[in-house]
């Protein structure tokens, strides 16, 4: 408790205890502005325009963007980066050999060029990633949108189905599917095996978002106009709820790439005839003590690619969600 009560010397009636007397500020000091004037910036702005403005100001957007672009180019045109055939030029004599001219990363146990195999494995990872997110996004959006928008028994049924698929960790599910489908291992089956169990998280995010968006007055206003339910869903509700889905899609792409690599690493992924980083790591793991390089290079390629997508996902999430932006 403070008892140090010190009276303040009066500084004159003008400032001292102004509220006691009727005080009015001079109009020059407090100019009046018209009520509710329309002030607009030079350029229009909405969520997407703002998100783009925010993202492009951030260095990590450009860093991850350039990395992703590079990975894409490598995947589509591997020939631009290496002329060494990944399978045919293997010589057992060079087994686990170190780097030589034209073979900067050395050789695998089978004597194949590590660099060439990494370059040629890129498209596999990306293809799986893209098929998986297409699948999860389509399934997730359909389930999430209808469950959230229509509610009632439709929601109950769709959400329970989602719960069931969500309750089996998708890599474990994929392990079972790929074990059973041992004879049919391909980019398509592995994508299907991952995607079919990975969609409920997308559906949940979208459903939650739609539940809040559909309460908006503009949805009610459209209903009162006589706009049909389906049109309201596609015109108003979905566009306003899709932002978080887009953010997690980028991160899901990274997760799908990891899932493929994990399955291939476990030996239930792609057939050994398909070039894939996971397969390379699987092949190299026995020689970790003696020849770590054959293991490390494909791991680095994998991790950097995943990192690029995760980074991009973060940028997108923060750009699209003002709440996430505040956390920065």
């Amino acid at each position: 408790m403070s008892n140090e009560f010190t009276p303040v010397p009066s500084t004159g009636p003008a400032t001292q205890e102004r509220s006691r007397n009727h005080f009015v500020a001079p109009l020059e000091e407090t100019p009046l502005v018209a009520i509710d004037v329309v002030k607009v910036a030079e350029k229009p702005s909405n969520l997407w325009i703002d998100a783009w403005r925010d993202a492009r100001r951030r260095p990590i957007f450009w860093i991850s963007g350039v990395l992703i672009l590079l990975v894409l180019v490598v995947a589509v045109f591997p020939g631009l980066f290496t002329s060494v055939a990944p399978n045919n030029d293997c010589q057992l004599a060079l087994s686990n050999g170190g780097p030589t001219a034209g073979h900067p990363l050395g050789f695998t146990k089978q004597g194949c060029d590590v660099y060439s195999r990494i370059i040629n494995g890129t498209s596999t990872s990306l293809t799986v990633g893209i098929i998986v997110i297409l699948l999860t996004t389509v399934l997730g959006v359909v389930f999430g949108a209808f469950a959230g928008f229509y509610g009632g028994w439709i929601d109950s049924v769709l959400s329970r189905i989602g719960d069931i698929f969500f309750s089996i960790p998708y890599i474990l599910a994929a392990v079972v599917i790929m074990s059973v489908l041992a004879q049919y291992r391909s980019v398509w089956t592995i994508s299907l095996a991952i995607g079919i169990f990975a969609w409920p998280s997308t559906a949940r995010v979208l459903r939650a978002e739609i539940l809040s968006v559909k309460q908006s007055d503009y949805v009610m206003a459209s209903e009162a106009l006589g706009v049909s339910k389906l049109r309201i869903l596609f015109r108003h509700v979905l566009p306003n709820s899709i932002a978080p889905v887009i953010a997690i899609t980028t991160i899901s792409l990274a997760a799908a790439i990891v899932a493929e690599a994990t399955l291939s690493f476990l030996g239930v992924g792609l057939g050994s005839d398909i070039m894939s980083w996971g397969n390379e790591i699987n092949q190299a793991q026995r020689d970790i003590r003696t020849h770590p390089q054959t293991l490390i290079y494909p791991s680095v390629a994998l991790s950097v690619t995943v990192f690029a997508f995760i980074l991009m996902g973060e940028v997108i999430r923060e750009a699209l969600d003002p709440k996430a932006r505040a956390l920065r």
Partner: protein
Amino acid sequence: MSSVSNPRRDAGAPLLEIKNLQVGFQTQNGTVQAVRGASLSLRAGETLAIVGESGSGKSTTAHAIINLLPGSGRITGGEILFEGRDLAKLSQKEMEDVRGKLIGFVPQDPMSNLNPVWSIGFQVEEAIKANGIATGKREIKKHAIEVLKEAGLGDADKRLRQFPHQFSGGMRQRVLIGMGLSSRPKLLIADEPTSALDVTVQRTILDNLDKLTREIGTALLFITHDLGLAAERAEHLVVMYKGQVVESGPSREILQNPLHPYTQRLVAAAPSLASRRIQSSSHSLGDLDYSAPRSVEGLDLIAAAEHRAELQAEAPQREDSIVVENLTKVYKIRGAKGDFKAVDDVSFAIERGTTTALVGESGSGKSTVAKMLLRLEDATDGKILINGTDTAPLRGKELLALRRRMQPVFQDPYGSLDPLRNIGNTIGEPLVTHNIGDRTSRRERVLELLEQVSLPATLSTRYPNELSGGQRQRVAIARALALKPDIVILDEAVSALDVLVQAQILQLLSDLQGELGLTYLFITHDLAVVRVIADNVCVMQRGRIVEKASTDEVFDRPQMEYTKELLNAIPGAGIALGV
């Protein structure tokens, strides 16, 4: 400088004196000055209210006193002298001793100001412990019970063990007031303590606050946007505008003789004051002799009300546009015993070209009535006739035709427009939905509508987030008018707006009604607004209409206890106004 001097000066130094306070917020684009040289002073045991609109710096000033500025806010200049000590210079630790103990604080929104995971008792007791009011488990608990009792919570014993979500808003605010006063502070800062509560609850809470501060002798610094409320509850007023104090002094003097043009605007636009003023003239509106400042920008609510009265007096008897008969809505509640009757046997009729207000507190069923009228919900029982047609069996084309004649404007200015569609598309959506005209004619109509609601044509390519709340409501009104309806249902359409903006929109609505012959159903919780806009009033309580009559009738000769209670809750009852 034109200070109206009053030579009377009491002895003794002020308890709190703020001198030339500056508060800035750090943003990406540099510092934004929220308070620019505010000064005020308050003596022990006195009550002072800071009045202003959102963004005026009133809350920031209050938070600066106990250094609880949000985020990047910093005091950048000036002094805050409390008992002679400059609070702006205290260390974090010293400030902790001031907070709670010497200066109590009652926040704005009771719903978010109690921690949901701790019991009420825990939160009250921790305040008592922190300020050293009592020691020992039993003593602290005893004291906590006393605090709650004092705040007007019966069976405080049992209440201690409950959690915030088991309390109503009013009860939570009582707890917060009790905590704020628990250590008998010399000053209590109350930041819009009741603006989130129902009007009748507001009144009892404020009465309780008044009583307690008076008994304890605590000075009260009261922050509010409602000039009427401020004048009713505080001896002194400080009017803030854009971070500056534009006028201050004794409440009565300011209300009777506002000198700064901004204060004049506020006095003219505050619905509570306008409604009181109309009320205090015993004659009908047309004869109102009225001398308050009427100079300002079409904001004058009384003038608007007068104009309305004239028009209605001239108009001949007209047929009913809306007829509601025995309307009932029952919701089945899963798991609960019995159903919930949201709307119970409601009947009323609205004449073409007039405004009927449906007044009630939250949960009274007023919005459910609106939804049934709009055919957004089906009635469980009863009839709705629009221009003589029963709406219940309408389907397809006929329903669309009904929708063309009747359009809504909703409350939330931030949720009423689709954030991803530009203003032009939003206003044009009704035309597209109803297949009216071609591209060019729709565009022309959109521009015409923008003009009608006094917005520039350039807005048609802009998005809602670029507009203020009032401007969004204008857009929502334009959208509602696009189909040239004859009925507009306004569901709390002005409730979320600042007073001046609210007055502007009320004026706009009134003008549009005159111009287009619209029939309004005006749904609101605020009786004060009703006084200036409505011809007839229906008062709703728990799903039923308890009173319906002309506005004059309801205000002059209220029949029901509940209506009287609502009327009493309009702030400013005890103030002599410059009529």
